[in-house]
């Protein structure tokens, strides 16, 4: 399967999941009309970005995704979400503007400067460090389904844009391009690990985990990992991250706070969500019943030794940081001063996360069988 088709398929699956979840999470009210108009348009812009063959046309589609998702990020209309939207619009538009400049340079035959601009531009939208600064703000302020959609689908689309330019490069520049992508990938992994360990906000934690996985995808791509492994990683990450963001949205609804220290004792109050949260965190960290385990093993086995060791250490740091958070939230006694009470939430809100988990497990099973018989 080509990468565009895969990403188109993932985007579509995520759209279905997020829409079903939004029916229960957002609901149909007068003030949600804009949400229901913009969500399908946002999806349409992403499909266009996957399907348009013209490079400048793809630019138009990707810039359109920025514009259509910005009001969705500002859904709650608080001072913080306004700030997140402003940062998202300014940083991503400048990034995408640089990508347009890069596209022009590229079409004019100046491949190296063109590719550098394109990488910086679409890298901004993809959330590669050091251009990632908009991502944690936007993902933490957006409502659950929108964060899920942004993280699972939009980042992949921008990555697709980078791969298209990389494929068009003449033979002699490919090594340079791969090294640049590898460097950004490793740096993203590093930044994510550093910020995950001391994180106090569980939605920002997931946002940094997205940066980590985008870094991993970039590393896999630059090292020419096996297509099958590479594509499974993208699919498994998108599904799990969607599920985690939806669960995080539900937790926010129940507890009214994103502060990790205030949420505790999930295992007693919200049993199903506690299980989903724990499984999701373990899956995203690549614990064995996860498809990400296979893909990460594949990466570590095929990478040069220094890349493999750096990736292993950073992945371990991420795992330590995330599991500490999950254990604290599920079993912990918490900080009595800031603790919040859980409000009951509707059971319908857990339908899509459970389904996503099941699909992820199926992906894992298929991968396992393929590896077993191959």
């Amino acid at each position: 399967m080509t990468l565009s088709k895969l990403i188109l398929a993932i985007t579509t699956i995520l759209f279905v999941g997020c829409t079903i979840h939004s029916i229960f999470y957002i609901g149909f009210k007068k003030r949600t009309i804009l949400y229901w108009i913009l969500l399908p348009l946002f999806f349409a812009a992403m499909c266009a970005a996957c399907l348009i063959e013209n490079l400048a046309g793809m630019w138009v589609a990707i810039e359109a995704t920025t514009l259509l998702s910005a009001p969705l990020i500002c859904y709650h209309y608080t001072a913080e979400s306004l700030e997140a939207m402003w940062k998202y619009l300014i940083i991503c538009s400048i990034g995408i503007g640089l990508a347009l400049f890069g596209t022009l340079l590229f079409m004019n035959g100046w491949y190296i400067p063109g590719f550098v601009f394109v990488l910086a531009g679409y890298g901004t939208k993809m959330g590669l460090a050091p251009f990632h600064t908009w991502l944690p703000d936007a993902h933490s302020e957006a409502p659950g389904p929108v964060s899920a959609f942004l993280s699972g689908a939009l980042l992949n689309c921008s990555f697709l844009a980078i791969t298209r330019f990389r494929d068009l490069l003449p033979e002699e520049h490919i090594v340079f391009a791969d090294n640049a992508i590898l460097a950004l990938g490793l740096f993203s992994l590093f930044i994510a690990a550093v910020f995950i360990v001391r994180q106090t906000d569980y939605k920002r934690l997931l946002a940094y985990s997205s940066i980590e996985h985008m870094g991993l995808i970039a590393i896999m791509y630059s090292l020419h990992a096996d297509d099958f492994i590479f594509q499974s990683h993208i699919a498994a990450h998108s599904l799990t991250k969607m599920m985690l963001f939806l669960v995080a949205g539900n937790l926010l609804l129940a507890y009214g706070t994103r502060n990790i220290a205030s949420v505790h004792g999930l295992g007693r109050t919200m049993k199903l969500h506690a299980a989903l949260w724990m499984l999701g965190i373990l899956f995203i960290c690549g614990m064995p019943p996860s498809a990400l385990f296979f893909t990460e093993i594949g990466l570590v086995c095929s990478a040069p030794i220094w890349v493999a060791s750096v990736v292993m250490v950073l992945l371990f740091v991420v795992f330590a940081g995330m599991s500490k958070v999950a254990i604290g939230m599920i079993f912990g006694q918490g900080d009595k001063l800031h603790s919040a009470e859980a409000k009951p939430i509707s059971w319908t809100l857990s339908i899509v996360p459970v389904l996503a988990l099941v699909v992820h497990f199926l992906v894992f099973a298929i991968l396992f069988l393929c590896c077993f018989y191959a």
Partner: protein
Amino acid sequence: MNIFADIILASLVIINLRLAGSSRLGTLIRAVALQGFFIGLLPLIFTGGEHWGITLINIAVKGVLMPIMLTYAMKKTNTKRELEPLVGCGKSVAIIFAITLMSFYFCEARHIEAEIATRLAVPLAFTTIATGLFLIISRRKAITQVIGFLVFENGVSIFGASIAMEYGLLIELGILLDVFVLVFILGIAIYDISRTFSSIDIDKLNHLGDRGHIHLRRH
């Protein structure tokens, strides 16, 4: 034809310096409108009058519509000038002047004008892009940041026009529409920011970040 193009491009140098050196938002908006008008003319001159339709739309959007929207946002939020920019106006002019000289020097040294319509185009595209980015970095008001983005986008358009890139009409319109909608949304956001934060200083937008418990105590 190239003499017209050169006159327009040379006047863009002055507009860039004007943008860097003025603290009045009205002046900035007029300067960016003039810049949009000139840049709209460029494709017409470079291609010898073929694409007059797209030229008209370009000039209408960049030279008229977007400045009107910015002026409206300026009046609504009741801001007239950029008080205390992070880099003073005199210094800004000096910096932009230095960037202009450097990009001319760089482009002459690298001989990259091979397929370009005129020698001035590439260094000017770089300078204009740099001016836009500089305005975004060095100014505090949200409106100035939007103006900076427009200048940046104009710089990219100069480059696009000068290499006579044929995207096709649809994509040209798509790019224009994207920029227009962006400025529209940013304009609405500026109004909301001025209402929520009771100022449009970007420094006030500092609630989000990874600061752990400091963030917690404030609420």
